[in-house]
């Protein structure tokens, strides 16, 4: 399912203190592709993901997901940076939440939730509550809660940013497996260059605020992807390219901040 963004503008706040978060962003995120959005902090990555997901209203421009004219959010589901799990619900009730909302009967939704929980490696933790789990386990719950919706578009906002290095590698490989098995359109926000290249079919590099698209880097690494590819020359070339772009923007962002303070 294609995601088409045209001349998207997002302004927060009122004049004269308004913040231009996104400035005429246009891009087509191709159907069934894994697109990573890479950019310095505060450049509007989360804002873009939330607009595409129908969570935030936007100032102007057009955003379409699919071609059936349904409102934004109908076809997508978000995996949040802060996870936003429901702490009073058990793991299984968190995962089954979307089905419960949809009115799916309890035995069926529990059955489906149980299968997904097993597939993200959490069998045996169905009756735990999120506060009793480690960070990586909670991340899996959040992933399962989104996957159960079976929506064609997944929006992922720095889902692995808070994980330790080992857990992150495991989760990345799991996400690659899920993606390669069940071709969905994935929009994956990250600030980690290696993560963006390892996971994505293309990497959209954004500028410092106001967020614009600086460059789109196609990632022609073969699939299935694996962590070992990080050491290949092809990966290294892509990494250097992205690093060069990002460095410019991070420096820009720092200059902006200095100017604001001074």
């Amino acid at each position, binding site marked *: 399912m294609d995601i088409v963004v045209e001349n998207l503008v997002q302004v927060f706040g009122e004049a004269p203190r308004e913040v231009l978060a996104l400035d005429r962003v246009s891009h087509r995120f191709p159907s069934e592709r894994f697109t990573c959005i890479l950019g310095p902090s505060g450049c509007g990555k989360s804002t873009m993901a939330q607009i595409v997901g129908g969570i935030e209203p936007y100032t102007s421009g057009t955003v379409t997901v699919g071609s059936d004219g349904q409102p934004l959010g109908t076809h997508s589901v978000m995996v949040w940076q802060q996870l936003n799990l429901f*702490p*009073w619900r058990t793991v299984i009730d968190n995962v089954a939440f979307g089905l419960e*909302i949809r009115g799916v009967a309890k035995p069926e939704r529990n059955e489906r939730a149980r299968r997904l929980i097993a597939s993200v490696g959490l069998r045996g933790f169905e009756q735990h509550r999120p506060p009793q789990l480690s960070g990586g386990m909670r991340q899996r719950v959040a992933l399962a809660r989104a996957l159960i919706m079976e929506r064609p578009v997944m929006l992922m906002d720095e889902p692995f940013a808070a994980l330790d290095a080992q857990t992150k590698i495991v989760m990345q490989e799991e996400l690659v497996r899920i993606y390669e098995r069940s071709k969905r359109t994935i929009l994956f926000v990250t600030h980690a260059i290696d993560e963006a290249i390892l996971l994505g079919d293309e990497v959209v590099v954004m500028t410092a605020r106001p967020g614009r698209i600086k460059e789109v880097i196609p990632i022609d690494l073969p699939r299935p992807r694996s962590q070992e590819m990080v050491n290949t020359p092809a990966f290294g070339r892509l990494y250097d390219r992205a690093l060069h772009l990002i460095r410019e923007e991070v420096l820009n962002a720092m200059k902006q901040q200095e100017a604001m303070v001074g």
Partner: protein
Amino acid sequence: MAVRARTKSKTRRLAYLAAPYLVITAVLAAWEFAVRFNGIQPIFLPAPSSILKYLVVMILDGSLPYHLSITFLRIIAGFAVAGVTGIFVGVAMGMSRLAARLVDPWIAALYPLPKISLIPLLIIWLGTGETYKIVISAVTAFFPVAISTFSAIRQVDSGLIKAAKDLGAGVRQIQFKVVIPAALPGITSGLQLGMGVTIIMVVAAEMIGGSSDSGMGYLLIHAGQVMETEKVFAGLIALAIFGAVITGVQKRIDRLVAPWVEREH
């Protein structure tokens, strides 16, 4: 070496556990000693042993259980009224901006008023019967319950609401499946505050001149008037234990209602 360290820490732990009881015993012993041998008048400060004697007598003759259970029923009635109305108003304010706007000036005006100053007015309106005692305690407890409920609902993490919406929940579903459960810990702590002031107000109302011939407040004031200081102390001890039991039960209920909250105890 390791073994010695362990036995040492074991005796330490024992001392740690026993310390408060040792201090209590020492204080009681000093008290008893001071009253018996330094000629303090029992009217001012009776010895612990005679307080204990009175306590036993009052339990056996049924007066303490009688007054305590009357007070308990009044507390439950006042608390129930305050809990139901407080939660209802707090939830309404939290869920509807209009309700919050309508109710807010009333709360702002009435909350700072010491509720005990309403007693004369309530006695004029309601007399000095049961209704008055329940109303004064319910009115007092209403505010902490309503205010805690309101702020608990307002402070629900907006991320949780957005996530629920993203997973397809409508307004009603968000209210009942997200906002209310997320606010539960705040609501139960409001109920705890409410219970505290209910106990205070029921006992105070029972004390007000001639308004009652039963309840712990009556027992205390009556014993005080005829200088039965032992009875006063016995009544205070009974009330203290009673309060501790109620608090304990409430904490246990909290843990049942909101088991996901990490607590200190």
